Structures are given as structure tokens and as C-alpha cells.
């Protein structure tokens, strides 16, 4: 079923939780709402479910306006991060709950209910655990019960609020893939809220990035990673940083601190955005570069030095610090876009994160303290 949200807003006192948001989830689509905490993604999900009332705007299910419809009648399956299982009921009773409370006319017979519960237990692969109580289950099992319980009432849509947020990394990954396959089988329109970009990328047909109560971008995982439309999206979806460019006397945007690869230079010379910035007389232009889009060579006269290196599996993450002409560091550092986590300590000098494969790092003889030169292989410009 298609879910459409039009100009939806919700304020809590003076805090805008959801600000004029419009969004459509196509029939059978799996949508991920991705954003940092406080970005309004959970509130948006709750508004769609009917657990929260909007101040303005409307929620439409398949052409039917359900904005004023109570959550009881919306026929949504809602799964919470912390499961919300009824502790005094067994797994079976939990799953059957939604069916047992139906009024007599709609309620299936006892045997039908138990048959359906069995089918659902089978679906979530907990066939033998029906008689257990929630406190006798692992986190992953609990979440599967919660999902089965939501599915029991044949919901029109499925809404999951950080469904794997309380689980271990390993379980999370397994369950995420399982959910994706389950979704492919069920083809139920599904919206998942998550703050984990890997989860969103792996799970969803389309990722909706939210920040500060607004939708920043909604696109397929590939598009959102390769063509983010905003520095926020760029930074949220992977390691990367802004390289400030200055307009030089030859009429090109160049970095005073590192070399630009041919591809990047060609891109800058073609770019409409770069031309506009030059015409507007801008002092600086930010080139957004992913940490794997740098090239790093050992060079005893290099302007950069490796001050930190950590193995992250197949690749090594380096932190390189500018040690060249100190003169204008201050001005550039202060113009760096604000950090994603305001609480995180800010580096005291101009530093970049660079990811290299282990082979590459070894070939180039890179290690802690090595002086290097940096070259940007590719990058992105964002409209103002």
C-alpha cells in the first residue's frame, strides 16, 4: 500500500520535531528513515502510525486520508526498539493478542487463531518457543516475536522503530538481512527508522536522510552515497571531509595545501557551481572528499604528517595533519563545516582522515610520523 505524507509538522512545545515533511513510500517498498538522534525520524514514524497527532499536514494510505484516524483503526504493524512484549504472556499469547481482542464478529475461531500463530512462529522460526515467556528469550528472538505479533493482525503497512538498535552487532547484521528477505517475500510496504547508515544502505530500497526535522534527501542507497545533495548527507553516509579551495591568480579553484588529481581539476573547470562561486567573488569553495578518495605518498618534504593510524579491517585509517606553512591554518580550520557530533573533541589543527588499503600503505612505506603529500583523486561540490 502506498503511504503518502503531505506537509506534516509536529512541534513539542518550542521544539520542531517534524517540520513540513512530505514523503511517499511506494507499494511494497522498503524505506529507511536515516538520521542522527533528534532529527525527527522517530516522530515521523509515530505520526504515520497514529501514535502521535500532527499539528498540520496529512497522512494518506492508498488515497485514504487517515490523519484523524486512531491508531487502533489504521491497521499498522508497529515494532519498537525495545520490543514491548507483554511480559505476563507467553510468546503464543503475545502473537495471538491482536486477534483475541477483536470483537466477536471479526474474531477468528480459537483453532484459526492457533493455526495462524503456528504459521507466524514458523515464519519467524521460533516454532518451538511458543510456550516461553519473553524473559526467557534472547534479544533477537524477542524482536522476531514482536514482528510476528505485528504481522498477526494483517497490517496494511509495517513500521519499525530502530528494530535492531538494542541488539549485538552480529545479531543485528543477521537479522537485518533476514528482514530484507522477509520483506521480499511479504511485499508489505515497510518503513524502518535507523540511525545506522550501514543498516539503511543494506536494508532499504530507498533511504530518506533526515536532519533537524526535515528531509534532506530521499534516494536509492547508491545514489545517496554517490550523489549526496547536501554536505550533511555526504558526511552522514561515510567518512569524508571538506577540502577548502581558493581561487588562484590563474583563474582556477585550487587547494593551497594539497594537490588535485587531473579528474578533479577537470571537474572543477567544468563545474557550474565553481564558475558561479568565482563570479560571485567567493573567497573559498569546499570540495567534499571521501576518506578513500585521497592519494597519499611518502615524501620527506611533504606538508602533511601521519599522526594516527588504525587498522579497520582490510584498510587502514590514517589521520594526517598539516605541518606546512602554518600561516593561514587558523582561518581555514575555522571555516570547516561544523562537526556532526558537537560533543566530539575537535582536532586542534588541520587534519584529514585518509583510508588506504593495507597493501597500498605498505608499498608506500607509510607509518606513524611519516611525512607525506596528499592528492585528491575525486570529490564533490554542493550548491550553496
Amino acid at each position, binding site marked *: 500500500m502506498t503511504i503518502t505524507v503531505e506537509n506534516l509538522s509536529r512541534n513539542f512545545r518550542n521544539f520542531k520535531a517534524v517540520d513540513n515533511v512530505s514523503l511517499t513510500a511506494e*507499494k*511494497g517498498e522498503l524505506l529507511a528513515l536515516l538520521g542522527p538522534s533528534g532529527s525527527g525520524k522517530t516522530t515521523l514514524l509515530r505520526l504515520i*502510525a*497514529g*501514535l502521535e497527532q500532527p499539528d498540520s499536514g496529512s497522512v494518506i494510505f492508498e488515497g485514504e486520508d487517515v490523519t484523524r484516524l486512531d*491508531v*487502533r*483503526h*489504521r*491497521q499498522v504493524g*508497529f515494532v*519498537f526498539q*525495545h520490543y*514491548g512484549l*507483554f*511480559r*505476563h504472556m*507467553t510468546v503464543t499469547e503475545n502473537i495471538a*493478542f*491482536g486477534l483475541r*481482542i477483536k470483537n466477536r464478529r471479526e474474531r477468528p475461531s480459537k483453532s484459526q487463531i492457533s493455526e*495462524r500463530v503456528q*504459521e*507466524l512462529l*514458523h*515464519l*519467524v*522460526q*521460533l*516454532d*518451538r*518457543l*511458543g*510456550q*516461553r*515467556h519473553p524473559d*526467557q528469550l*534472547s534479544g*533477537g*528472538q524477542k524482536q*522476531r516475536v*514482536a514482528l510476528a*505479533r*505485528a*504481522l*498477526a*493482525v*494483517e497490517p496494511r503497512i509495517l513500521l519499525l522503530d530502530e528494530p535492531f538498535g538494542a541488539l549485538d552487532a*552480529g*545479531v543485528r547484521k*543477521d*537479522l537485518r*538481512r*533476514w528482514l530484507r*528477505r*522477509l520483506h521480499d*517475500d*511479504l*511485499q*508489505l510496504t515497510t518503513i524502518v527508522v535507523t540511525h545506522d547508515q550501514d543498516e539503511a544502505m543494506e536494508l532499504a530500497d530507498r533511504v530518506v536522510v533526515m536532519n533537524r526535522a526535515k528531509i534532506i534527501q530521499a534516494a536509492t542507497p547508491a545514489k545517496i552515497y554517490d550523489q549526496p545533495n547536501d554536505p550533511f548527507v555526504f558526511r552522514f553516509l561515510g567518512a569524508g571531509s571538506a577540502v577548502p579551495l581558493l581561487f588562484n591568480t590563474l583563474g582556477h579553484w585550487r587547494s593551497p595545501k594539497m594537490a588535485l588529481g587531473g579528474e578533479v581539476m577537470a571537474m572543477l573547470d567544468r563545474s557550474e557551481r565553481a564558475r558561479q562561486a568565482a563570479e560571485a567573488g567567493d573567497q573559498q569553495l569546499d570540495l567534499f572528499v571521501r576518506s578513500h578518495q585521497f592519494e597519499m605518498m611518502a615524501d620527506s618534504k611533504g606538508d602533511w604528517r601521519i599522526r594516527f593510524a588504525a587498522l579497520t579491517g582490510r584498510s587502514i585509517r590514517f589521520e594526517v595533519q598539516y605541518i606546512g606553512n602554518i600561516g593561514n591554518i587558523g582561518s581555514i580550520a575555522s571555516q570547516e563545516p561544523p562537526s556532526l557530533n558537537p560533543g566530539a573533541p575537535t582536532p586542534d589543527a588541520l587534519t584529514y582522515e585518509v583510508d588506504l588499503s593495507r597493501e597500498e600503505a605498505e608499498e608506500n612505506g607509510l607509518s606513524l610520523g611519516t611525512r607525506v603529500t596528499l592528492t585528491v583523486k575525486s570529490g564533490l561540490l554542493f550548491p550553496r
Partner: protein
Amino acid sequence: MKIPLPRIKRQHRVIPGFGLAMGITLLWLGLIVIIPLALLVIKPWEIGWQQSFAAIMTPRSLAAFKVSFGLAMLAAVINVFLGLLLAWVLVRIDMPGKKIIDACVDLPFALPTAVAGIALTALLVPQGWVGQFLTPLGIKIAYSQSGILVAMVFIGLPFVVRSLQPVLEELGRMEEEVAASLGATASQTFWRVSLPTIFPAIITGFGLAFARGLSEYGSIIFIAGNIPGRTEIVPLLIAVKLQQFDMAGAAAIGVAMLLLSFVILYAINQLNRNWWRSAARESKSGVSESHDLTSFLLVGSGDGQHSPAESAPQSSDTMATPAYQQRLAERQREMTSDSPTPRKVPRFLRQKEPRP
């Protein structure tokens, strides 16, 4: 000469010295609880079994028992409703001055009960602030059984509120929201989800409020009027007997009260325990309580059709059967893996029309 003592393997415990801790516990229990109570039981022996029984069976003391137990029970019931409401408001509703109300709940704990009794009496006598409005309506509270009830409700309320508050806080809104999303009405949610979850706490609060009401003396003697046979409570009757130097009679009534209270409180505790056990019992038929994988495997299949003895592998032969191996593997996967693979989608969940 050294005596070889058997070495006891000591486990690390949070409280040091099991012997010391146990010793203090028993000493405490003995000095404070058992010895005085034993004395209470021994005392009636002075007048003999039959005399004691006669002292209890007088119409006056029987009436006092009826008043004490009946009203304490009724007060506890009232307190459960009042306390649930109050605790609900304190946990769920944001309002100015909530912290002050919260603090006021405990006042009956701190207030000398005589003060409470005098204050309630002053309010409720026919000329009192509240009493003057009730008298024209024909309602008499002070110097009647209703007065005793009011005093018992007053002192018992904090017990219910304080037992329920933490449980209500833990209950949270999530379960209620889940219920609503599954189509439950507010009353279905309350009766089927919220109430069963907090039921044990309600019972505990009930038990405490009941015990407190039963033992209350100070405030009740001011408001009750103490008419023998009508508004005389057991604790007062005991005091009266003591004043008449009828030690043995007083003790006999005391023992009777003690036994009766014990039976009732024990029953309440059992009810509470059974509440959880009945929950656990259903699961036991399927699965042992243990979360330990190996022990679970030994208990056999989870559907409860095999007793442990039947399915426990007695010999290596049993373990080698393909069926057992298969079950073992299946169980292991189910127990350890959180990566299930989707199976056949139930018919009722299949989409009616294919995705475009």
C-alpha cells in the same frame, strides 16, 4: 597438633563471611521476632487451653475481631483503588506541584498516629469542618465504624502508592502503544496489558495496607468511640484486658490475632507468587527454566512431548541416531542463531495482488 579439616571451597561473595551474615540474621530474627512471639504464645498456657479459647470466644472479642479484620480488609480494598489512581497520576501526569503531592503521600508514615487520629476526629465530628456537612445528610463518621475505616484508609494509603509507583514507572507507555496499534481499546489495554503487569504490586500493596490497618491503634481509638461490640478493635481490647491485669487473656487474643494475620498474609504472598509461577508453569511444559544450551538439549524437544528421561541420551547409541543428531542440530541452530531464514509466507499474509 593439627587437625586436618575438610577444605571448603569458597566462592567469592559480595557480602563477606557467610557465617557472620547468617549468624547476625538468625540472632536478629531470634531476639526481635521469635522470642517475643514465643513469649506471647507461652503466656496463655498459664490459664490453659480451654480458658484461652473461652477468652477469645466471648461475644465482645469476636465482635472486635470482626471489626478489625473486616474493616482492615475493606480499607485495603479502598486503598488499592485510591492508591492505584494516585500512583497513576503521580507517574503518568505532568502537573505543577507534583513533587509536593508526592512528598505528601508519605506523611501518614511520619505523623504520630495519635495526631492523625485527633485531626481526623476533629474534622469528622458532627460539629467539625467536614462533619457539619455530613450530619444533615445522615452520615455519621466519627464514633462509628466508618470512622475506623477512614483512619485505616489514611494510614494504609502510602503502602499501596509506594508499592505501585516503581512498577508503573517501569510499565511505560510502550506496551500500551503496542496494544493500541494491534487494535486494543483503552479498556482492553488496561485490563489485559497494564493490570496484569502491575497485579503483583497491587497484591503486595494490598497486603501491606491490610497489615497496617489491622495493627493500627493510635489513630483509631480517638475516632472510633470504642463502643464494645460495635466500634472496638482487637488491639484496643488487648489494651483493655491488660489494664484489668488479665495478662493471659490479652495474650490469648494476641495469639489468635497473630495466627489469623499470618494465615491471611501468607495467603496473599502465595497468591502473588503463584501469579508468576502460573506464568512460568506454562512455559515449563515446553522448556526447562535453564537458558543453558546443553542442559536444554538434554531435556529433549521443546514441545513437551518428551520427558527428560525419555529423550536424555542414555548411551552413545541414542546420540548417534540420525533423528537425534538432526534434532540436535536443529535445536542448536534455533537456540544460538539469530539469523533465521524466511520460510513460507502464511497464506493470510500473502499480498492479494502482485507488486506492479
